[in-house]
């Protein structure tokens, strides 16, 4: 039988340490909506999303009430739109009209983001892929809830450098088109290497083509809970440290598993995976950087940061896989700058640089995330940063991503305010030396060797 102290511990995690289920994301396949008439396609997409997800928000709130656990976001991911819109769209503007349909559907069912305005181009771009990518700045400037992602590389295929170069310009254009709102369009645009098909987290969620018609993926969170647990083992050896992270991750994941089971039953949609990620929010006490500091670093970014993060990431997974049989998505620690008070503090203190963040991304999910850079950064420089990050993912057989915000009109030291979960970002300096000659080469970087690993 449950005892008093266990009940108190759970409720303290919820009330004081920001334990929550970060997102219930319903993946919806749009493959059966494909039509060569744009109008018909739009209607079919709207109808499919609406009929699949009309109860999602209500059920999320019911579960939240029944168990006393906050479920912060309810979201939708759809089949990459480049695959769905190919036969109906002949211009970027046509694709942008699909984005508007998605936005309307998302508003009408009450979710707070919809992902899948995406293209998968790790080896090459079809005409539809290229049109979709070219439409991203327009689509993101005309919509509020639509998120976009482009997968430009994988361990199996190498990196499509033509897409990387194109994305450098697209990110810049998106920033300029949404300049009046702090270049917020870029906060909803991710460039991936090895993008997972079942990621529930935004902005990179899409419903992969290998998935079922509809599926529920759950993202758990809880950096505050891990931080609090580590406070009780200050100065202890690494074994104790690891055990503590593992046990905490187990508990957090079990809550996700419960919500997943309930949501799946009540909505009649099969459960897909739990994404075991420590996802910070701008709220005080909900920070991954604070966990690193609790481990003994003065600031995130100090020497030792990569090792501490590697340990954290690995232990979270080890604890989490014990708690759920279906783990997937990104699963690891997120290190977005703007969404994490501790990261922002480290940048302000001059301790955390873009280069250190890049090193950190080689041991954790996901990548260079929510980092504001000067608005006058060259397209080719952004492409160079993307290429570096994609190379880390390709060689290490992991997901990496880039979500940079070249904040229009801002310089190093300025701040960009996004509000809500997206937080606020200090503009960070970028290495100003050129890479034009490299990124302007056309073609692909070939897939890496899978042997002789050193």
């Amino acid at each position, binding site marked *: *039988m*449950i005892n*008093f102290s266990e*009940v*108190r*511990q*759970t409720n303290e995690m919820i009330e004081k340490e920001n334990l929550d289920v970060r997102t219930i994301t319903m993946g919806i396949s749009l493959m059966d909506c494909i039509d060569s008439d744009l109008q018909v396609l739009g209607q079919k997409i709207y109808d499919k999303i609406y009929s699949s997800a009309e109860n999602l928000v209500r059920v999320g709130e019911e579960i939240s*009430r029944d168990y006393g*656990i906050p479920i912060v976001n309810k979201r939708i991911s759809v089949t990459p739109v480049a695959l769905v819109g190919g036969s109906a769209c002949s211009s970027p503007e046509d694709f942008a009209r699909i984005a508007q349909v998605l936005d309307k559907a998302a508003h009408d069912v009450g979710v707070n983001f919809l992902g899948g305005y995406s293209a998968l181009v790790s080896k090459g771009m079809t005409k539809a892929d290229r049109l979709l990518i070219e439409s991203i700045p327009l689509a993101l400037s005309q919509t509020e809830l639509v998120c976009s992602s482009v997968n430009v590389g994988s361990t199996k295929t190498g990196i499509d450098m033509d897409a990387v170069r194109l994305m450098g310009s697209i990110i810049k254009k998106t920033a300029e088109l949404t300049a009046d709102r702090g270049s917020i369009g870029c906060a909803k645009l991710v460039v991936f290497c090895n993008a997972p098909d079942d990621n529930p987290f935004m902005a990179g969620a899409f419903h992969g083509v290998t998935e079922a018609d509809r599926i529920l993926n759950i993202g758990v969170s809880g950096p505050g809970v891990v931080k609090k647990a580590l406070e009780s083992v200050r100065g202890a050896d690494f074994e104790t440290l690891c055990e503590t992270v593992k046990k905490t991750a187990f*508990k957090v994941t079990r809550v996700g598993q419960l919500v997943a089971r309930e949501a799946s039953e009540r909505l009649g949609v099969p459960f897909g995976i739990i994404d075991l990620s420590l996802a910070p929010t701008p709220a005080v006490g909900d920070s991954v950087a604070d966990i690193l500091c609790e481990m003994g670093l003065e600031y995130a970014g100090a020497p030792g940061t990569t090792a501490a993060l590697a340990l954290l990431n690995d232990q979270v997974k080890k604890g989490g896989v014990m708690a759920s049989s279906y783990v997937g998505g990104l699963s690891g620690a997120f290190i977005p700058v703007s969404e994490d008070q501790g990261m922002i503090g480290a940048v302000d203190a001059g301790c955390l640089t873009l280069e250190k963040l890049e090193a950190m991304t080689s041991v954790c999910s996901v990548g260079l995330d929510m980092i504001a850079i000067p608005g006058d950064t060259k397209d080719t420089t952004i492409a160079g940063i993307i290429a570096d990050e994609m190379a880390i993912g390709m060689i290490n057989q992991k997901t990496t991503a880039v979500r940079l915000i070249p904040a229009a009109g801002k310089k190093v030291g300025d701040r960009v305010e996004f509000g809500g979960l997206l937080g606020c970002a200090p503009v960070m300096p970028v290495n100003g030396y050129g890479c034009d000659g490299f990124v302007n080469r056309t073609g692909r970087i070939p897939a890496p060797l899978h042997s002789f690993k050193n």
Partner: protein
Amino acid sequence: MQRAIITVVGKDTIGIIAGVCAYLAQNRINILDISQTIVQGYFNMMMIVDVTSLEKPFGQISEELAALGRDQIGVQIKCQKEEIFDLMHRI
């Protein structure tokens, strides 16, 4: 049997248990176990209850209990289904 956990926390005053129990009785909720302490004037109670024969939706019970605590007794009352605690603390 469907079980739920009710926790009551707040400044001690007359009639907390009476208030909560009267509500439970009206709503056909049977109490299976109670543990209660008072530390430095602060009242802490946990109840394990049987919610199998509820006539209202569980969410409504949970909201009404929270409102009872907030508006009438002056304590915080939470009512949660038992599984969340079970799953978190038992392998």
